[in-house]
């Protein structure tokens, strides 16, 4: 592998600098670096960030390869500027054994576009009844640190308590999908003004908030850390804020779509807007943006959830929940957080790379852009504006809520340990 010189990039949005990559690492960061025999990329004022890290991706393999595979999912991740993704456990079979997590981990290695860090299921078959072999998954080649029954809530308080306690032995973390199951039976969308009118089953905010409240108290009681997936309500933000002020070791994520879209879109009955947790209200969106800005919410996670066309080209009630997000995440964050002045690019790097890597205990990601660090980098053309065209997605699925919507920013280059996975916006 040769040398690459990225010339004139605004590192973390600062003054233009040159970054020299040698092999798998960053060799030098400064101004006026001689190109020598290095291949030169004229950054021309583009933003250089550490490679993005997603703590919440559904790669669907094994089991639902018709919607995504590890290969197509990691290609989508690379296009979106990601160098590492955490693959959620709700596959078929469920990633609840060392065998399955190692298989996913190995497929990620083979893909070469993006590191894949498997997430292990908390309970066997995601059924919430019996702890999966958390230790074995950690001890496997996949070295699992994050455990989640995502898609389902670990609703049994005792199982949740035990899981929180058990993973302390190997510095693991439970990522909770907070959804009280009884309060969300038959739920189709946010419960409120719009659901009342549309006659769709309501998913009340309290079903999320009550579980978060319980879990931060459990985490405090047993002295564990806990991570909350995809916060979607203003009330959840308040609970996390309170928990952090008490010193509870809780981290939280928000998805790009919950920072932009509201339940008003459901009036179209277009299932592309059907997602779990559901799109909430304008007030929730604003509270989530503020919380991400002030650090109450630690990270952005995509909850990239690919679904085949037929699972969305149907009536609302029959449609699958979820949206793809890897390839639009950074654009949505620029649109909702950077262009609005809520976050600097340095803070974007923090929320989308540094902190997710820290929560997942990833050693080689979310590092500073400085000499000696692994060359996991993302170059962003923040001046770009253009409509989202799902036909051009690297993901196998097209279920984006942004089709045709004009969004800012585009990843032009992604480097995974010094190797370009994306060049000029296209897969290398």
């Amino acid at each position, binding site marked *: 592998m040769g040398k690459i010189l990225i010339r004139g990039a605004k590192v973390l949005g600062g003054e233009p600098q040159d970054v020299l990559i040698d092999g798998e690492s960053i060799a030098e960061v400064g101004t006026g670096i001689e190109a020598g025999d290095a291949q030169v990329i004229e950054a021309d004022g583009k933003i250089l960030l550490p490679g993005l890290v997603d703590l919440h991706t559904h790669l669907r393999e094994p089991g639902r390869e018709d919607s995504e595979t590890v290969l197509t999912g990691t290609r989508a991740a690379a296009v979106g500027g990601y160098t590492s993704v955490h693959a959620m456990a709700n596959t078929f079979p469920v990633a609840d054994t060392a065998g399955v997590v190692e298989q996913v981990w190995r497929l990620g290695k083979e893909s070469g576009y993006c590191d894949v860090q498997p997430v292990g299921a908390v309970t066997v078959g995601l059924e919430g009844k019996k702890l999966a072999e958390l230790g074995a998954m950690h001890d496997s080649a996949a070295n699992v640190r994050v455990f989640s029954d995502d898609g389902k809530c670990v609703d049994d308080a005792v199982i949740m308590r035990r899981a929180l306690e058990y993973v302390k032995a190997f510095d693991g973390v439970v990522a909770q999908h907070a959804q009280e199951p009884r309060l969300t039976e038959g739920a189709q969308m946010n419960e409120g003004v719009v659901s009342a009118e549309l006659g769709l089953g309501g998913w009340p905010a309290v079903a999320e908030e009550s579980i978060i409240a319980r879990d931060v108290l459990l985490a405090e009681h047993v002295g564990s850390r806990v991570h909350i997936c995809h916060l979607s309500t203003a009330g959840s933000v308040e609970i996390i804020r309170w928990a952090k002020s008490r010193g509870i070791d809780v981290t939280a994520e928000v998805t790009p779509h919950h920072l932009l879209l509201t339940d008003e879109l459901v009036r179209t009955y*277009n299932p592309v807007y059907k997602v779990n947790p559901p799109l909430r209200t304008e007030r929730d969106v604003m509270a989530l943006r503020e919380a991400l800005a002030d650090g109450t919410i630690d990270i952005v996670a995509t909850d990239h959830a690919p679904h085949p066309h037929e699972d969305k080209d149907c*009536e609302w*009630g029959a449609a699958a929940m979820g949206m793809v997000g890897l390839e639009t995440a950074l654009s949505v964050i620029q649109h909702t957080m950077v262009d609005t002045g809520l976050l600097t690019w340095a803070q974007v790097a923090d929320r989308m790379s540094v902190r997710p890597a820290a929560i997942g205990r990833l050693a080689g990601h979310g590092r500073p852009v400085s000499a000696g660090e692994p060359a996991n980098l993302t170059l962003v053309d923040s001046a770009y504006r253009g409509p989202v065209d799902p036909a051009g997605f690297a993901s196998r699925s097209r279920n984006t809520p942004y089709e045709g919507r004009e969004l800012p920013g585009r990843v032009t280059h992604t480097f995974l340990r010094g190797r370009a996975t994306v060049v000029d916006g296209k897969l290398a």
Partner: protein
Amino acid sequence: MKRHLISAADLSRDDAVLILDTAEEMARVADRPIKKLPTLRGRTVVNLFFEDSTRTRISFEAAAKRLSADVINFSAKGSSVSKGESLKDTALTLEAMGADAVVIRHHDSGAPHRLATSGWIGGSVINAGDGTHEHPTQALLDAFTMRRRLAGGEGDLNGRRITIVGDILHSRVARSNVHLLTTLGAEVTLVAPPTLVPVGVETWPCEVSYDLDAVLAKSDAVMMLRVQRERMNAAFFPTEREYARRYGLDGERMARMPEHAVVMHPGPMNRGMEITAEVADSPRCTAVEQVTNGVSIRMAVMYLLLGGNEPALSTPSTTSTTRTEESK
């Protein structure tokens, strides 16, 4: 009018009055020796029912047949739909058969909206009840019945006070009626135990009360909704007896209604639950009339949607010179 009838909220006052006026004319056909009009000859109307509802289906069927349309009944039970064929594939089949209108009853809220906007079919879509969303022809026949009983069969329902009692949360009839009756100038009050009122109801253009006795005396019409006994098991109310005592309409309560006030029920009735036999069988109860009126309303809707090369223009009837010189 729009090309489809999906929601009562889509109807303007003029649209609604035009439908009611047209239904009045259709009702006269029922009194004739030959209850049939040639108007929709050669048109095909498909009744696409994903949910059992013999009453609604035969009402639409009778309406279409009286207008001489060809009627195809497509019931999801025992058909390819229950074997996993999607709504989309079913729609494409109907389109290939040349359906001019699809009357759809579906267990999912929004399915008719989806059918109308997805581009799967070219014909008109008439919502015959979707999930817990809307049932616009039911609201129209209710309004028609009230207009006959309370407003001399003309104009709108301006200032009339209508009380709707029962399972508002799960009722498509209530949702459509709130929209339509308000459009027609009526004042609507919903009465239910708080568990059966949707969160978010505060934006609806109506009042909400938990006390039936407080509103009876000032109601021109009281519409009793069917309350499914299964709701009790989901803890919406403790027992049938308690529900009937607090929210059921019995003779004693009916006696406290104004003399001219009517009792309505969309059927089928749970006698002894939301309504006692005494009330159901009294001349003040319009349940049977509502069924009769349902056919007239559905004829009117089909005529106005399919009777021309495009749906009727809902200009107020002051410009009555619709006949062209050429055709005299």
